[in-house]
């Protein structure tokens, strides 16, 4: 396998969980809700997905368990932030802590178990094409799902009426409410969708990436996904670019080390995060000082007056 192909495969694998989680969060934020609990939802997805696969023997069952766990966690968030008008930042952090703790309790009994990881596609003839064969036709289901998801989200947001309504809710919930749209219901559905994606992203880690469960195996990916949404100016296309860029930086720094380039490893490890800050600054600059491309009602509490 050529070096380019091999590196690309590693990058794709590293980027997929980021893309899955960030895509769901993008929809949530487009509806005006800021859910900082991505890390908690992802790790719950990982724990439940592994438990599900270990107990049932099926990766599909496990993945569904992961999605369900993400939805359940986000439901808690929705009840508090949308139902009880609680501050979203604090709720998101509470969700992260809760999810981290719960996943440790649930997953503890499954540490050390082995499962058969998700299979990779193999189309005779196509998969073995030089250079792009494995990249395009040799991935596991999660990768294809992540790409389909982003395309689906783009179509939904920009080519469907419901998507238009969702964006309207995110930009100006007062006007949307005045026009008769069920703001809270739309936001709740967006939050649940984001939760499901986060759960799926978490499921990818123990079912495909490193096929075993270790407490805390998300290792901060939820926070990076949050940054990616802002990085992408809340646009699905840019999200793909951002996720793969981030994945690439984290993989290439390992290659640089192996090549003996002699740059301090801590500097290399901090590159992805520094890159995010720099890009955030550059992007926000082009929007002007007074604001960013964020949905105008992002994070603002909404209580419909009757």
């Amino acid at each position, binding site marked *: 396998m050529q070096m380019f192909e091999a590196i690309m495969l590693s990058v794709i694998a590293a980027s997929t969980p980021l893309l899955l989680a960030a895509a769901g969060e993008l929809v949530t934020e487009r509806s005006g809700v800021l859910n900082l609990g991505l890390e908690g939802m992802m790790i719950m997805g990982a724990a439940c997905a592994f438990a599900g696969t270990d107990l049932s023997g099926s990766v599909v069952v496990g993945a569904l368990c992961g999605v369900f766990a993400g939805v359940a966690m986000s439901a808690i968030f929705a009840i508090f932030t949308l*139902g009880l008008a609680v501050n979203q930042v604090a709720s998101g952090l509470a969700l992260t802590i809760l999810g981290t703790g719960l996943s440790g*309790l649930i997953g503890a009994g499954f540490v050390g178990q082995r499962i058969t990881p998700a299979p990779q596609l193999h189309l005779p003839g196509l998969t073995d094409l030089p250079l792009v064969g494995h990249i395009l036709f040799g991935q596991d289901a999660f990768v294809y799902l992540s790409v389909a998801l982003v395309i689906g989200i783009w179509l939904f947001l920009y080519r469907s009426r419901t998507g238009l309504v969702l964006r309207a809710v995110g930009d100006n919930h007062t006007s949307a409410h005045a026009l008769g749209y069920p703001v809270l219901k739309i936001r709740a559905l967006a939050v649940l969708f984001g939760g499901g994606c986060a759960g799926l992203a978490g499921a990818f880690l123990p079912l495909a990436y490193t096929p075993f469960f270790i407490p805390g195996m998300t290792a901060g990916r939820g926070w990076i996904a949050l940054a990616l949404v802002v990085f992408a100016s809340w646009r699905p296309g840019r999200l793909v670019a951002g996720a793969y860029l981030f994945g690439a930086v984290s993989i290439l720094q390992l290659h640089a080390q192996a090549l003996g380039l002699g740059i301090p490893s801590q500097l290399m490890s901090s590159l992805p995060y520094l890159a995010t800050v720099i890009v955030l600054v550059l992007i926000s600059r082009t929007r002007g000082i007074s604001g960013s491309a964020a949905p105008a009602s992002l994070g603002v509490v909404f209580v419909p007056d009757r």
Partner: protein
Amino acid sequence: MPLVLERRSERSATIAIASPLIAIALTLATMAVLFAILGKNPVEALDVYFLEPLTDPYSLGEIAVKATPLVMIAIGLSLCYIANIWNIGAEGQFLVGAVAGSWLAVRTNGTDAGPWVLPAMLLLGALGGALYALIPAICKVRFGASEILTSLMLVYVANFGLDYLVRGPWRDPHGMNFPTTAEFDPVATVPTLIEGGRLHAGAIVTLLVVMAATVLLGRTIMGFEIRLVGAAPKAARFSGFNADKLTLFTFAVSGALAGLAGIIEVAGPVGHLQPDISPGYGFTAIIVAFLGRLNPVGILIAGLFLALTFIGGENAEIAIKVPLDLTKVFQGILLFYVLACDSMIIYRIRFIRTPRKPAHANV
């Protein structure tokens, strides 16, 4: 929907007082259920968690030691959060403050420096934290970049920076090449208050910070501005208050407090600089800030309470073999309940009877 959230005409005074108690009661009830699911005796477990640590001086001292950095950082964060400015990078500011102050300790290590060292270290720590916090603040003010994400990303950078320093340039030459600085000289160490315990002078500094914050928020123009910007941003703008200056100020102050907490922790309980100096104080302090409802005295109580849960959780691990993850679950649940109960001060829940459609409407 049959249930609807409705704004009250005025804040409910009864709920304002009862809210933390209701939240705690709800949390204890949920925890009792969780203990039962895990197969432990709920009463015994709750006792080990909350009551036992209060019964002996050693645990009480440890609660204070754990609460000291939490409260100090949380006070700083509360100033930001009241004004809806979201500093999530306190952990990074904590680390940078520790590094900045430790620089002096490492420089003067082994020399016969005078008692000026420790105060200078504390000052450097606060300064370091403040400068580091100004980075996301400037990014927001100048470029409009989200301070939530910039401050968070900088936490990772600070972590790696600390790691690099203790493994490289600042490593103790007599430490068998292990990643730690030399042990700080006595002039560079925060003094303990009680023989044999770990309670140290940092606790006194924290109490002073609580008092200062109460005065700042309640009796100064700046405090008024912070509260106004949070409650009614448009009115604040019309009054001529400069939102940008406020962002810079609150970030700098919270960064300074976080940095101060960092250097005190390193020059106190730890005694030298090493890669692992914080079990996530910067993030736990965010919870403390909200639990304390962004009020200085409330934060003091919340910090002590949360420290109690940490100590209780560790005791429970030994006494009844309950996993430490349960403490995180507890803290998450507590925060949710507190937030919900607080919401009930401003809103109330009402049942709505959906009016039945008259039969002839479908004709």
